[in-house]
């Protein structure tokens, strides 16, 4: 098992290098650079602007700059933002707790809505209720997050005045709307996964064995069946959680939520390559770690997976 974990963490290295290189290239290709953003509107001659560029080292070839960045990163130095001159790590981790909060809250919304709905659909396969549930779930996917966010805002903040419109506050209420918006977006996939995984399990002989033992129907479904359907559900919820840790830029914009998604978006708009790259690398790392945790959780859900991990460890 430990070998497996170490192997997965080592696989992070090429992923991080690839991701950072990609961001570097794309940022380089895009129109304008950080200097043109800083100096925009300032009364400066082209020579002066060029001098600033020279001083910031932006005139050197891309690969040289990337090499320098990579070397710094390996020592744990993610550089400083070109705009605010603050260390990237500090900027990222001041914002990160808010993102974690939102990611977890929206995943809870996701789980609470999708799993019961998916189970219900599977048990009433082909019925009107099943179809209605599937349409409802699909609607969650089809509605753009910014639109849904705005509609919820109109309803709960403007008309009913129950909840605050911005997500920046520290109280519980301020996170409800962003979390619900994000959770509904996640719901479609999770519900469908739950439904199909449960459909598969509901046909299994061991449920008949459980019923023949006299296990109450509720327990047959929620314990015997659900635990067997857990792996695909866990994968979906985990992937969505990992994605949410990267920050939902759109939702953060709509609710003025101070998370890392907005940080990244601002960095890109300002052509702040160091900050953008740092954000991407950190988000990638966090995503990979969350997915790894999900993989480890498999072993707790299904003893057969545990046996596989153990066997894989012994072989090598």
């Amino acid at each position: 098992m430990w070998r497996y974990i170490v192997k997965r963490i080592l696989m992070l290295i090429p992923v991080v290098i690839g991701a950072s290189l990609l961001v570097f290239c794309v940022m380089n290709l895009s129109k304008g650079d950080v200097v043109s953003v800083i100096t925009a509107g300032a009364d400066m001659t082209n020579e002066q602007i060029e001098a600033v560029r020279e001083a910031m080292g932006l005139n050197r070839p891309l690969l040289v700059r990337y090499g320098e960045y990579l070397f710094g990163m390996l020592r744990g130095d993610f550089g400083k933002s070109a705009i605010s001159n603050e260390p990237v790590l500090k900027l990222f981790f001041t914002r990160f707790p808010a993102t974690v909060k939102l990611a977890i809250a929206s995943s809870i919304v996701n789980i609470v809505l999708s799993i019961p709905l998916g189970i219900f659909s599977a048990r009433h396969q082909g019925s009107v209720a099943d179809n209605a549930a599937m349409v409802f779930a699909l609607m969650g996917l089809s509605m753009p997050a910014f639109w849904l966010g705005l509609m919820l805002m109109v309803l709960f903040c403007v008309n009913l005045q129950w909840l605050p419109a911005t997500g920046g506050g520290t109280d519980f209420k301020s996170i409800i709307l962003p979390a619900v918006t994000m959770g509904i977006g996640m719901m479609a996939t999770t519900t469908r996964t739950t439904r199909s995984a449960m459909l598969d399990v509901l046909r299994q002989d061991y449920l008949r064995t459980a019923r023949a033992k006299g296990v109450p129907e509720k327990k047959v479904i929620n314990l015997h069946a659900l635990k067997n359907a857990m792996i695909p559900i866990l994968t979906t919820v985990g992937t969505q959680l990992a994605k949410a840790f990267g920050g939902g830029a759109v939702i953060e914009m709509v609710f003025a939520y101070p998370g890392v998604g907005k940080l990244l978006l601002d960095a890109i708009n300002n052509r702040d390559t160091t900050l953008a790259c740092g954000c991407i690398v950190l988000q990638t790392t966090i995503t990979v770690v969350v997915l790894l945790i999900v993989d480890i959780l498999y072993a707790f859900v299904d003893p057969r997976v545990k046996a596989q991990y153990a066997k894989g460890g012994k072989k090598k």
Partner: protein
Amino acid sequence: METKNTVLDIENLSVEFHVDGEIAKSVTDVTIKLHEGTTLGLVGETGAGKTTTALAALNLIQCPPGVIKADKIEVCGNDMLHAKQHELEKIRGKDISMIFQDPMTSLNPVFDVGTQIQESILLHEKLSREEAWEKAMQMLELVGIPRERGHEYPHQFSGGMKQRVVIAISLACTPKVLIADEPTTALDVTIQAQVLEMMKELRDKYGTAMIMITHDLGIVAESCDYVAVMYAGRIIEYGTLDEIFNNTRHPYTEGLFNSLPNIHNRVGKLKPIPGMMPDPRSIPEGCAFADRCPYATDECRRTLPETLKVNDDHVVACLRYNEPDFMIERSRKNG
């Protein structure tokens, strides 16, 4: 025989499955009475309705698509037909339990085997978790698995061991009625004998009444008191073991015996029954076996045979016995 308690009483059971506008008649007019401590062999080829009959006894048939009709289904005096869900849950596993055909898929892969036995005990007996676990471990030992393996999962067991676990689960609360649905079909021959022997021991120990569903007449001869032969959803011959084996009446039962390999005649070819069982969606109006029966007349194809009494211990559903001199070949030889 009449002094013993009736533990399973099924009267005129019919089970249909309504799928895509078609009706498949899986079981028709089956009546089974089972007394304490006796074993009934339910014999017939695949698709004859044996398993469906058994599932109906537990009221475990999915409705829809299934439709159960019966005058009576009683387990130890409990009406299974009209019982509410929570009442059924109390009867299943306690008064009646079932060993399923395929041990490979009958156990839940994500719980250890001890927990799966313990669950049944916790549901039906007022014991603490520790006591129930202890009893589960005793059950495991009873079926010949060391208690140390109680924390292991189904995938760590072989097929024969899994079947023992399934048996341990179904016997955990010492049910009055045990239905064993081809308990040895999925096992290899060496294990078959062990499992059968074990089931017989347990039956003698607890006085459990058993229905042994099988298509292996050898198993029937070895372990049953009564035999019911099923064909296309009906019981076509029913009697004591001795009567069915030595005084065979129905042509289909004869066919079953003829298709057994004969140890005294190794050169002879097997004599399978020609043809196939009718599709449950289109069972003929006359005798369902007529098309495959060497004795069939035109009358057989038109009229549904009534159940005729051969003697107190034997009934048969075959029209030809209305003719006074009719005798199938096997009984002629035996007689």
